[in-house]
C-alpha cells in the first residue's frame, strides 16, 4: 500500500475506538488510514465522519497504547483494499490479510475493495449447479447449490468445527467436473479460540486440503473491530478466486456469532441506539452485506458459495442472530443436541433444515431425475414418524396402531442409517440407495409424493 498523504501531530482527541484529527488535508468519507504510533506500531482505521475542522477516524485495531503526540497518520485516499493475486491458495492469513504462515507477501495483481460492491440482481446468474459435501443429510435432503448461502445453525458444544473441516475436506464438484481442478475453499475463523485455530490448521495440512484452501484466522484475542473485517477479507479473496480465476469457491465462515458480538460491541462504543437484545438496528443490513456476496455473475465462470456457521446462543433459533441470518440466507442446516448425545454424526435436525435453492440444482439433468421426489417423500414420512414418536411418548408404543409403529421403525432406521454416517464420506447415489431401501418398508399407498412410475421402478 502506498502512502498518499501523511499528517503529523494532527490528533487532538482519542476516545474508545475513535480518534479525532484536525482536518488539514482534503480526505473523503470511508477512506482507509494507517495510524503509526510513537513506538512504530501501525494500526488500521477508517474515516467515519468529517466536518469543516475535524476528521473522525474509527480504529479497526486495538487503540490501547495510542498517544496523541508522536502519531503519524497516513491517508490512503481510498477505501480499504485487499491486494490479491495468484498464489493465494495454500496460504494462511490473519484477520486483515497479513500472512501468518511465514511465507512471502502476495504478488498483488489486483486490489479489491474489502467491502465489495453489491452485485446487480440483473447481472446475477441464478444458481442451479449442485455441489456435493459428502453428508447425505445435506446432499440428498437439503442440497447445496453453487452460488448459494446456506448457514449451519449450531450450538455451544456441538461438533460444528468437525463438520466444517469435513466439508472443507470432502466437498467436491460432481464427477464429470471434478477433474478440472476448479474447486477452491476459503476458510475464515472469526474470533475463534487458539485451540480451534490450531485444529483447523492441522487438519487442513494433514488431509492435504490446504493446497486448495485459503485460511483466514482471527483469534478470540484479536480486537473486535478487526473481527468485522475478517469475513470481508475472506470474501474478497473468494471473489478474486471466483471471478478473476474462474474457480468454484466454497467459503466457510465460522463463527458468525462472534462477528455479531463484535458488531454489538463496536456499535455500543459508538453510542448508537441498540435494537433487539442490544444488537444495532442495522444488524440485518450489515449481515446482508456479507451473505449477499455469495452468487454467480452472468458471463463469468466461477461462483462463490457460502457456508457460514453460527452458534445459537442458548440453542434459541429465535435469537436475533439466527433469526436475521435465516431471513437473508437461502435456507439453513440446524444441528441437534439430542442426536449429538446419541452419538449420531453429523447431528443434523432435519425438519427445521431447508435448502431453498435445492429445487433449482437437483433433478433431471442436474443430479438424478427422482432425487427431488425422493427427498420430498423422505421428508414427509420422517415428519409423520416424528409425530408418531410424540404420540408414543404419551400412549406408549403398545398403544400405537400398526401404521404408527411402522412409522416409528422408519424414523429410527432413517436417523440411524441415513442421517448418521460417522466418518464415512457418502456420495449422493449411495445416499439415494439407502433412501429407497428405507421407503420399501412402507406400503406404497402411503407414499403420496411419489408417482406410480417411481414406486414401480425403485420400490418393487
Amino acid at each position: 500500500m502506498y502512502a498518499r498523504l501523511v499528517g503529523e501531530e494532527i490528533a487532538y482527541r482519542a476516545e474508545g475506538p475513535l480518534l479525532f484529527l484536525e482536518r488539514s488535508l482534503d480526505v473523503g468519507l470511508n477512506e482507509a488510514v494507517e495510524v503509526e504510533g510513537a513506538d512504530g506500531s501501525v494500526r488500521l482505521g477508517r474515516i467515519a465522519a468529517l466536518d469543516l475542522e475535524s476528521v473522525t477516524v474509527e480504529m479497526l485495531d486495538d487503540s490501547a497504547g495510542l498517544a496523541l503526540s508522536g502519531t503519524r497518520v497516513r491517508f490512503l485516499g481510498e477505501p480499504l483494499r485487499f491486494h490479491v493475486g495468484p498464489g493465494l491458495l495454500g496460504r494462511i492469513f490473519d484477520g486483515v490479510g497479513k500472512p501468518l504462515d511465514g511465507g512471502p507477501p502476495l504478488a498483488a495483481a489486483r486490489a479489491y475493495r474489502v467491502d465489495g460492491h453489491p452485485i446487480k440482481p440483473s447481472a446475477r446468474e441464478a444458481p442451479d449447479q449442485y455441489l456435493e459435501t459428502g453428508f447425505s443429510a445435506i446432499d440428498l435432503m437439503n442440497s447445496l447449490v453453487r452460488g448459494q448461502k446456506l448457514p449451519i445453525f449450531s450450538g455451544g458444544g456441538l461438533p460444528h468445527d468437525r463438520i466444517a473441516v469435513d466439508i472443507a475436506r470432502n466437498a467436491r464438484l460432481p464427477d464429470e467436473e471434478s477433474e478440472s481442478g476448479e474447486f477452491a475453499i476459503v476458510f475464515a475463523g472469526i474470533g475463534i479460540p487458539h485451540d480451534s485455530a490450531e485444529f483447523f490448521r492441522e487438519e487442513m495440512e494433514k488431509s492435504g486440503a490446504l493446497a486448495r484452501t485459503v485460511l483466514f484466522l482471527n483469534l478470540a484475542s484479536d480486537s473486535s473491530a478487526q473481527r468485522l473485517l475478517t469475513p470481508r477479507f475472506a470474501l474478497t479473496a473468494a471473489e478474486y478466486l471466483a471471478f478473476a480465476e474462474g474457480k468454484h469457491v466454497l467459503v466457510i465462515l465460522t463463527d458468525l456469532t462472534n462477528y455479531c458480538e463484535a458488531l454489538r460491541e463496536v456499535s455500543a462504543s459508538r453510542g448508537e441506539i441498540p435494537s433487539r437484545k442490544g444488537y444495532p438496528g442495522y444488524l440485518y443490513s450489515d449481515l446482508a452485506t456479507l451473505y449477499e456476496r455469495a452468487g454467480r455473475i452472468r458471463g463469468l465462470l466461477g461462483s462463490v458459495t457460502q457456508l457460514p456457521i453460527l452458534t445459537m446462543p442458548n440453542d434459541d433459533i429465535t435469537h436475533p442472530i439466527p433469526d436475521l441470518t435465516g431471513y437473508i440466507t437461502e435456507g439453513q442446516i440446524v444441528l441437534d443436541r439430542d442426536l449429538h448425545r446419541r452419538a449420531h454424526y453429523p447431528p443434523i435436525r432435519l425438519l427445521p433444515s431447508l435448502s431453498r435453492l435445492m429445487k433449482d440444482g437437483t433433478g433431471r439433468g442436474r443430479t438424478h431425475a427422482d432425487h427431488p421426489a425422493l427427498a420430498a417423500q423422505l421428508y414427509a414420512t420422517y415428519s409423520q414418524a416424528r409425530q408418531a414418536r410424540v404420540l408414543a411418548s404419551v400412549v406408549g408404543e403398545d398403544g400405537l396402531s400398526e401404521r404408527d409403529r411402522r412409522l416409528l421403525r422408519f424414523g429410527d432406521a432413517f436417523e440411524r442409517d441415513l442421517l448418521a454416517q460417522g466418518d464415512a464420506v457418502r456420495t449422493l447415489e449411495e445416499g439415494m440407495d439407502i433412501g429407497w431401501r428405507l421407503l420399501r418398508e412402507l406400503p406404497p399407498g402411503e407414499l403420496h409424493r411419489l408417482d406410480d412410475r417411481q414406486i414401480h421402478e425403485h420400490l418393487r
Partner: protein
Amino acid sequence: MSRASAIWVSGPVMRARPEGSFQLRESVTVGERRLLGEVIRIARDEITVQLYEDTSGLRPGVLVEGTGRPLSVRLGPGILSRIFDGLLRPIGDPSDPYVQPGLCRIEPQRFHFEPGVRVGDRVSPGGSIGTLSNGTALDLRCLIPPGHPPGEVVEILDAGRYLDDEPLCRLRADDGSPHAVTMSHEWPVRVPRPVAARLPSDQPMLTGQRLIDCLFPVARGGTGAIPGGFGTGKTVLLETVAKWCDADLIVYVGCGERGNEMAGLLAEFSELEDPRTGRPLMERTLVIANTSNMPVSAREASIYTGITVAEYFRDQGLAVTLMADSTSRWAEALREVSGRLGELPGEGGYPAYLSSRLADFYERAARVRTLGGDLGSVTLLGAVSPPSGDFSEPVTTHTKRYVGCLWGLDAKRAQARFYPAINPLNSYSLVAERLARWWHTQGCTRWQELRSRFLTLLEEESRLERMARIIGRDAMPARQRALLICAQLVNEGFLRQSAFSENDRYASPERQAVMMRLIGSFLEGTERLLDAGIAPERIAEDPVYRRLTRMGEEIPDGDWDAFAAIDRELTAVVRRLIDAGRESGEGVGDSRDGTDAM
C-alpha cells in the same frame, strides 16, 4: 436551482450550508457523481440531507444541488418489462455487474405513437391523446398527466416513432397558456395519483392457487398480507401468484431481500409464458429490486416507487397487482431513518408513525374509475417477515388492521414440506362473502357451501388432532376418525399445490371448482359409509383415495374426463363398500357412537 455546500458527512447523512431555499423532502443531487438524496430537515442556516447511495469519498465542501421538487420518478412506456433499483433507475446494463453509486437516467427510447385526438379537441388531465406501443402485448396510452390544466389541442403529431421525451401534442389551456405533452412524465412518489372515483371491488383477483382462491380469496383492487417466519415460503408464494394471477401487469418490488431470488425470478419470468397471451411473462412484469445489501435509505423509497408505477398503469385502464417482498424490511428502513433523525421511538423501536405509513401504503390499493373514464385497479400483496415468526410484533399487527385478507404461513406445515404453507386457522379473507357471488355466476353454485364446510372441517381437525395425540387414533369413534380422514384429504388433495409441478402450479377456476366438488363428493360418500356402519378406513385404503390425493399433480387443466372418471370410481367404491358391508353384516353399532362433529 438552489445550492448548498457540505459541512459535515457521516454514513448516509450529511449537513450542508444552503444558498437559496430548499423544501422539506426535496430531491437533491450531491457531488460530481450526482448521488441522489432527499432533504429531511431544514434550519435557517443548515439543511440535513439523507443520501440514497454509498457515500464513500464524500467530503466537506461538496456541492449539494436542489431539484426544486420532491423525489419523483419518470413514468412512460419505457419502463415496462425492465428491472430498476428502488429509485426507478435501470440496473439492467450488462457492462458492469456491480451497482455503482451515481445518477443514471433511463435513456430516451423510441416508441410508436398513434394519435387519438385532433386539433380543436378538448382534453382534460388523465385523458389520452393517443396510443403507444412498445412491441409487447400491452398497448399503452399517452396520458395527459393529472394536475395538468384542461385545454384545447392546437397541434398533434402524425402517427410514427418518436422519442419518449419529445413533445407530441401542444395544448392551449383555458387561461391561454401553452403546454406540451410527451409520452413520459414525472410524478412525485409519495403523492397518490388522483382518480375520478373509487369503486367497490366485487371480483376476485384469481391467483390459480386453490388455497387462496377457494378459501381466502382476494378482491381485485383489494389488499393481502403474507406474514411468515423464514423458510415458510413467502417468496415462493408471492412469485407463484405473480406468475399465474390474472392481472394485466405485475409490479414486483424486491425490498431488502435476496439477490439470487431476483435473478431466479428474472430468469424464470423470461422463460415462462403468460397463459393468457402466450407471450413471455416478463413482458407484463416490472421488477424493482433493492436487495438487502443495497443502500438502506433507497429501500424506504422503493415501496413508494413501486406503488406509483402501479398507479400509472392503473390509470391506463389496466388491472395491476403489486407484490412487495418484504414490507418488514421497508419498516426497518423507516426505523433506521427515524433513528438517524433522533425521533422518539415507539413500539419495537419503530417510529410512532409506522401504523399511519402502513395505512397510507395499503390505502393506495383500489378499484377505480380513472380520470380518463376507464376501469383500473391496483391490488396490493405484501409479505411480512416477523422477527422469530412471532405475529404479535408491530409490523404484523398494524398490517392486519388494514388488509382485506391475511394468509398466515406456518412453520410446521413448511417443515412437513406442505406448500403453500398457509395455515387456514391463522388466515382470513374479509371479502369472501362478497366474492361468492362471482363464483356463483361462473356456475360454481356450491362454492360458498363447500368453502365453509372445508373450513369447519379444518377447524374440527385441529381439535381432534389434539385429542388423537392423547388417546390415540384407534380409540376414537368412527365419526371422528372419518373426520380426520376427510380433513387429511382436503389438505393433501386440495390445499396442497406444488409450485414446481407442471400440472399443478396453476389451477384454473373451472379446475378448482371441479376438484372442490370431487372432494365434496368424497365427504358425502364417507358420510354414507358411516351411516351404513362401515369403518371409514376402508375408503382411505382404497386406491381411489390415493388418486384423489394426487389428482392435482396428475390431471392437467382441461382434462375433465379424467376428473369425471374419478368421480364415477368414487361412487362405485362407496356402493361396493356398502354392499360388502351389508353382506358381511359389519358393525352397525359403530356408526352412531360418534359426536355430531361432521
